[in-house]
């Protein structure tokens, strides 16, 4: 399959009062046509900033994309003019945000918000745009779209608003949707509905998806490939099946072991990752995870590169990846 999106050595920084933060520090990953890729990690790992960098929504002057390339259908988005980039946003790459409460405009009707993009990007006539908006609402499972179209966001529940966000994202037939924690603000049963909806739509319409999440369960159910991030870097990269069966970075292993699971017998104690999440202004030398790592060796003061471990493309950034393979099998 062809690469739809290819991110090469992307580095995005923010100037803060306590120093320069490398929120995304030289990451490379890609998305193939029609596939679902996940960026997983905890708060501050750089997963959202990665998505915002693709959309070129990093606010200057504090934020800056320092270097790297973002190829989308062969064009480097970082080299496009502002005009050209505006054409891409919404029509070719769309975004679904975490907070359906704050990402819809409260003073515009849902209908207006759905048609705006089409009218701007494709100069669709209002009547045609309205017809498409009705169809979109139906696609995302909102009943009685005729009645719903002239309503305002506050008339809708959280789950419904997220459906509207998805409808807006689909409005211009994008090839890629960036979904930033699309279900984190929603209840479990609604989360299941929204994720099923996104998966079905992505399959039916062939839209590729980037799911950004901290929830390893969501990733297991919905992603084809996974990138695990820690302190601005990708520390492990594999297919979902491979990552869960055979985690090779101590952080991934730690994350998987620290959550209680409903399918396993209850453990007497949870096995947490010790220590605190990293402070991006004061990262340790070498591997950012080493102060919390059980497998730390002397060499960890040198930053380990993300290297392939097998022919299938499972990569990990850890000097001890070979030893962790056996450890994960013993404990699993």
């Amino acid at each position, binding site marked *: 399959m062809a690469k739809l999106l290819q991110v090469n050595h992307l580095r995005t920084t923010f100037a803060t009062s306590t120093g320069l933060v490398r929120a995304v520090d030289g990451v490379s990953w890609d998305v193939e046509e029609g596939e679902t890729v996940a960026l997983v990690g905890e708060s501050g790992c750089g997963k959202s900033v990665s998505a915002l960098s693709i959309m070129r929504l990093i606010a200057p002057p504090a934020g800056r994309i320092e270097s790297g390339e973002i190829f989308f259908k062969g064009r480097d988005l970082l080299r496009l003019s502002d005009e050209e980039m505006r054409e891409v946003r919404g029509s070719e790459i769309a975004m679904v945000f975490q907070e359906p409460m704050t990402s819809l405009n409260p003073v515009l009707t849902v209908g207006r918000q759905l048609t705006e993009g089409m009218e701007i990007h494709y100069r669709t006539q209002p009547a045609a745009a309205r017809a498409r908006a009705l169809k979109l609402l139906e696609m995302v499972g909102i009943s009685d779209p005729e009645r719903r179209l002239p309503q305002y966001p506050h008339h809708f529940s959280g789950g419904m608003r997220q459906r509207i966000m998805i409808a807006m994202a689909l409005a211009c037939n994008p090839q890629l949707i960036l979904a930033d924690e699309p279900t984190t603000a929603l209840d479990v*049963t609604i989360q299941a509905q929204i994720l099923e909806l996104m998966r079905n739509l992505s399959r039916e319409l062939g839209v590729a998806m980037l799911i950004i999440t901290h929830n390893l369960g969501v990733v297991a*159910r919905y992603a084809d490939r996974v990138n695990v991030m820690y302190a601005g870097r990708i520390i492990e990269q594999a297919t979902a099946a491979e990552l869960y069966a055979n985690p090779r970075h101590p952080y991934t292993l730690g*994350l998987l072991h620290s959550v209680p699971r409903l399918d396993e017998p209850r453990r007497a104690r949870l096995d947490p990752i010790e220590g605190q999440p990293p402070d991006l202004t004061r990262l340790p030398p070498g591997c950012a995870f080493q102060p919390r790592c059980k497998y730390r060796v002397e060499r960890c003061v040198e930053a380990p590169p993300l290297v392939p471990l097998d022919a299938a493309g499972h990569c990990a950034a850890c000097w001890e990846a070979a030893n962790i393979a056996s450890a994960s099998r013993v404990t699993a």
Partner: protein
Amino acid sequence: MRGVLGGREYRFRLAGDGMSETLLEVRDLVKHFPVGGGVLSKKTGIVRAVDGVSFDLHRGETLGLVGESGCGKTTTGRCILQLERPTSGTIRFQGEELTTLPPTAMRKLRRHMQVIFQDPYSSLNPRMTIGQIIEEPLKVHAIVTEAPARAERARDLLTQVGLLPQHAKRYPHQLSGGQRQRVGIARALAMEPALIVCDEPVSALDVSIQAQIVNLLEDLQGRFGLTYLFIAHDLSVVRHISDRVVVMYLGKVVEIADRTSLYEAPLHPYTRALLSAVPIPDPKLEARREHIVLRGEVPSPLNPPSGCVFHPRCPVAIARCAAEVPALREITPGHCAACHLA
């Protein structure tokens, strides 16, 4: 134990074997909030946030209270702490009826029931040092009157929750989320409470930190013989920490059982759907698993459905469910469910 719920008689055998003393007894708790009842407008409706909730909490156990947002779990916790005045129902804590207690007596009693909040960012005063935050309740309740002794106690509490004595001099913004939650726990512990209401204590924390806090809560329970009411929406965490679990939906209890029976043999269709909605971090298993995706959304507690409040979304509902409110019945010993089909 016998009681009446919704005009129907039901029987509870809520005590797990060997657990004797009832620390907290909640009976037919109701909390309604008026809507639109401002100064100028007339009252337009009633939100039935908690609508007839009964359960017991035994000394030394952890009772999980789960449900989705708006199910009334937090309001139940707030009513128990008397941060909300219940509309009706009774709450007995250590044998004393809280709903009729005068404010001064309630203030004295409150030191025995503490709370840990969800958001470690907004529940600590940003202008106070960690030491001051922990010492404040000791001072207010005149538990430790000498300042040096109080400081000493605060340092000791910090060590108990896995922080360092020198953290006492810091301010909340200098700590990470997990560390702040530890401070919240130390503040609750300072009162040497019998009961701690933990309202979503880990859901705002990073995944790698959640397990640390869960382990800490369990350690402290063992060390100080604490009783927890653990309010959460994460069913995996609730299974891990709770001895028994109460499942709520739209202000009502739909199921109560000990941990093992609830998770291995759930009786209520809502509990089953909730469990199946929790994604499991294993792609192979996920592909094989049966997922019950519920139709629709949680109805508004302003205008709850007739009969069983879950019936419009229930995959197995029958005609009776729309007409008749199911009583919470004991189906197997210690396992109660409010479902006509259970």
